[in-house]
């Protein structure tokens, strides 16, 4: 890189159930983002005219979050008219992709200050609204054996020999860690309460976490993909995995990521931006990576992506203090730990999306704030952030404190 890509701040909204009964349902996506933009502005007394671009991830960019939600949010937040905005979609990695693009643009010297993040109001624009060949094109689905990701998650568990108990146990731990972290104030620095126009708080903290979760409660849940697997998806997937006798369906709503609403924003800039605006960097982006693996099993990209990022940085697994893998499904996180040969004690130390939810386009950049806060709390140096991505892709970003 020609210059460093510093992280000046990272914020997010709290997350709430992505249904009409969720606390954030009544909040428009532009407002979710707008609250974060205005928070960044206020926290840093930011001259918004300095911002070169705003990149926001969103996986269902239509309806209330269609037509470039990033630029709409920038205008609606009252930022300087010179600030552009772009929305991008790399499925579940969109938020982190936005961060990586910002890092690349700042690192290359093309830009000096960017805001990157994402938004997903899953209550207002339900998952799958965008359609697309992968989900709704007979020719494509038939030829490419395109199956829902949950089938892939169950296939991973089957191949690895992980039982329902194994994945549930992982989920119980995620809930425990998330509740502990939230209640201990570990997210307070980054979570910006969502307020209405009167200044009344709509949601202060994550409210999706279910602290009382135990094995018994999780055990009572039905497997989510058993029925649709039986319709034929299992056979489609297994046509590429002849070594597997049958897919064991172990994932349930209790050990998969929750459907929630939320948004995130990370301010990334050059040394010059820091000097010009008097901002102190909290960290920097060391390296980033994105790649793709088999699209059918779909969810095994994160481990290879993390390795790729390490290689680029000239570092090894031992150089990383904390690991964060998006808990799309329990088996994804477990496979990530196995691939990298790392323990749960350094991975997702504050829980993950199984407990707190996964607002698709926003999650990647949320994890930046989670890791930055935790590195500071533990006074550690480096953290790796990874997500599995539709189409078999994986993404990683290595950050370090400065």
């Amino acid at each position: 890189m020609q210059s460093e890509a510093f992280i000046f701040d990272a914020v997010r909204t709290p997350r709430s159930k992505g249904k009409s009964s969720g606390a954030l349902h009544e909040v428009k996506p532009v407002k979710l983002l707008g609250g974060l933009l205005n928070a960044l502005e206020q926290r840093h007394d930011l001259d918004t005219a300095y911002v070169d671009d705003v990149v926001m991830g969103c996986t269902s960019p239509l309806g209330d979050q269609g037509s470039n939600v990033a630029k709409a949010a920038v205008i609606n937040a009252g930022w300087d008219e010179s600030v552009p905005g772009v929305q991008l979609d790399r499925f579940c990695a969109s938020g982190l992709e936005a961060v990586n693009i910002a890092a690349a643009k700042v690192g290359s010297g093309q830009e000096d200050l960017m805001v990157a993040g994402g938004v997903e109001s899953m209550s207002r624009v339900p998952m799958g609204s965008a359609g697309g060949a992968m989900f709704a094109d007979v020719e494509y689905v038939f030829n490419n054996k395109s199956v829902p990701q949950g089938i892939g998650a169950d296939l991973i568990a089957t191949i690895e020999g992980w039982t329902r108990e194994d994945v549930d146990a992982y989920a119980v731990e995620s809930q425990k860690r998330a509740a502990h972290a939230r209640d201990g104030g570990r997210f307070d620095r980054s979570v910006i309460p969502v307020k209405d126009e009167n200044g009344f708080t709509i949601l202060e903290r994550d409210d999706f976490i279910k602290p009382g979760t135990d094995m018994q409660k999780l055990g009572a849940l039905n497997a989510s993909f058993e029925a649709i697997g039986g319709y034929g998806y299992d056979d489609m997937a297994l046509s590429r995995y002849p070594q597997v006798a049958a897919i064991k369906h172990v994932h349930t709503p209790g050990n998969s990521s929750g459907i929630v609403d939320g948004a995130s924003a990370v301010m990334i800039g050059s040394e010059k931006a820091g000097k010009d605006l008097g901002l102190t960097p909290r960290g920097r982006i060391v390296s980033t990576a994105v790649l793709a693996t088999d699209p059918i099993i779909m969810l095994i990209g994160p481990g290879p992506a993390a390795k790729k990022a390490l290689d680029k940085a000239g570092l090894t697994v031992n150089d990383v203090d904390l690991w964060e893998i998006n808990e799309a499904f329990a088996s994804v996180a477990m496979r990530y730990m196995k691939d990298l040969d790392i323990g749960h004690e350094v991975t997702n130390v504050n829980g993950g999306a199984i407990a707190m939810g996964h607002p698709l386009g926003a999650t990647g950049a949320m994890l930046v704030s989670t890791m930055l806060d935790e590195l500071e709390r533990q006074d550690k140096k480096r953290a790796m952030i990874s997500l599995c991505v539709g189409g078999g892709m994986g993404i990683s970003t290595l950050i370090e404190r400065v």
Partner: protein
Amino acid sequence: MGQFVYEKDADGVVTITIDLDGAVNTVGEEFLLGLEEVVTKLKADSDLQGVIFTSAKDTFVAGGDLEKLLAAETEEDVKELYDYVQSFKALQRDLEKLPVPVAAAINGSALGGGLELCLACNYRVAADRHDLRVGLPEVGLGLMPGAGGCVRMVYLLGVQGAMPYCIEGKQLRPQQAVDAGIIHKVVSADELLADAKAWVLGARGNKDLLTQPWDTKGYRVPGGISNAPKNLAMISGGTAMMFQKTRGLMPAPARILDVMVEAAGRLDFESALRYESRRFVGLPLLPETKNMIASLFFGLNKVNGGASRPKGVPKSKVKRVGILGAGMMGQGIAYCAAVAGIDVVLKDISLQAAEKGKAYTAKLFDKKVARGHKTEAEKEEILARITATDQKEPLEGCDLIIEAVFERIDIKDKVLAEHQELLAEGGIWASNTSTLPITRLSQSSNNAAKFIGMHFFSPVDKMPLLEIVVGEETSDETLARSFDFARQIKKTPIVVNDSVGFYTSRTFGSKLEEAAQLVAEGIEPMMVENLSRATGLPTGLLSLHDEVSLSLTRDVYETQVEMGLRDPKDDATPAAREFLHEMVGKHDRKGKAHGGGYFDYGSDGKRLWDGLSAWRKEGHAIPDQDVKDRIIFRAVIESLVVLEEGVLRSVADANIGSIMGIGAPVQTGGYLQYVNTYGVQRFKDRCDELAAAYGERFAPPAILQEHAADNRPFV
């Protein structure tokens, strides 16, 4: 304390009669407590068969606690209001979820929160009363239907269907409300409760009838959801149309449309109700809302209630009015009087002219008959009250004669001399004039105590204002009786003492003069036209001046100078005077009716007259805000001076007079109320700034300095 009377009959049907303290039931603290009590009782009643809501008053329930809304200042007040509407909504939901039918027997007008309560009932039946209205008039006071009105109306009628009622506040007569789909049925008043009960008994156990549309699975909002592709363009276009109507100056309509669009499928029902609350509760803090509530409700009630009417004079009624001059003003006055049940003698110099004046009333009624609002018989009845004549005799015995002849003192004097003897014993003579001094005119009268000025506005049948001008010798009794006459013909009377231009003409003139001054200084005329409109004035001031005619402004001024009423030395805007003089005298730019003024008028619309380039100074510009403020501040300062001089008797008269008579933007609340929400001190400071930059005419008058010193609003 008032209450919700709870009576259960032998069939197990509970009738709840709303009977709160005061003349009308309003949605306030008492209302909520009463509703909460009966809903709790209903929920606990195990053999309940049905519920009927009705009212013990002449109206069902009309409106909310405006005093409280007007007083709202702090975040706590807003929170309290939020909790209030949310509680009201929760009770509405409780009613909707009762396992028995709930009917609203709408015995009188159900407006605002009253209609919102009815919308939470399964069945709405109204009494067939000519004065009964249903509607959501909140927007007219800068508010919005905040107790479920926006949301439920959208579910009932769709976004487009509900717009006239939610965004324009359109009120309906009972049958119109049935046709619109807002209520279910109209019956005669004495059948009302029986009908409601019959419906309730018939609907028991019928799940379809007991389930509100919004609680019905698979129910589709008429016109489809907001995110339907065919609706998306309509949403943006509808927003633009609303902006055009309000010039972006009214916050409430934009919030209402937003709530309606969100309610149509973007939010679930409960979230939509909550969202409606959030968008509603902040409105009372906005100056626009405060201004509208203060003036259009409280101010108007004060004016119509007789704040400026001398006390101790018994209420009177005019039985027979004579109108001299059947021109535009005379024929309009004749119409208003005849409709109010007064016998009218309409005289002009020829019978033909008088008949033409009478035909105006026939023409207005023809339209009403065509629309089905009136019958041919009603038209004939009204027309029979008007006697058109060119003779003096029919005027004999009129208890009021209104002279509405040409605006020249000699003509007015002549008409007075010829007719004053015809007045009944103790009768009143009124001169309709917008500019001539009443005291001077009264000197030709044989009884100046019975002489008064009545400044009607054109077109008289549409304009609600009457400016009553009290001459030096006009008696209190004459004033009181004139006031009563104004109310009799359903006008809103403001009372002013005799001064040049009274209140309205003088203030109106100051705006036109300031606009002319801006043009004379070399500001781009189109900027003056458009920025004056941007303040919320109904018409750009250059167009308006063209309508009024520049020559009239000049003539009136010159007459007043001739009469010694004005001294050119004191002219606040000599450049404007010079400019108007040249426009009229040198360039024959007299106004629209005379072939053009500021604008040329062609078949393809209007364009600025090229000759204005003689004044235009390229590159000479002042801040937009200064242009807007100069126009509004001139009118406000003029109003303050009029108040200071004692020409005005009340602040409310100024506010109502300016809105209803001379087009003050409604969101200002009138030209004195504007100072209150601007901030009295801040307004004074801005006057100082403008005075320093543009001249002494902007210097704060003494009365403003006094009020600023102890931060006292004008009330």
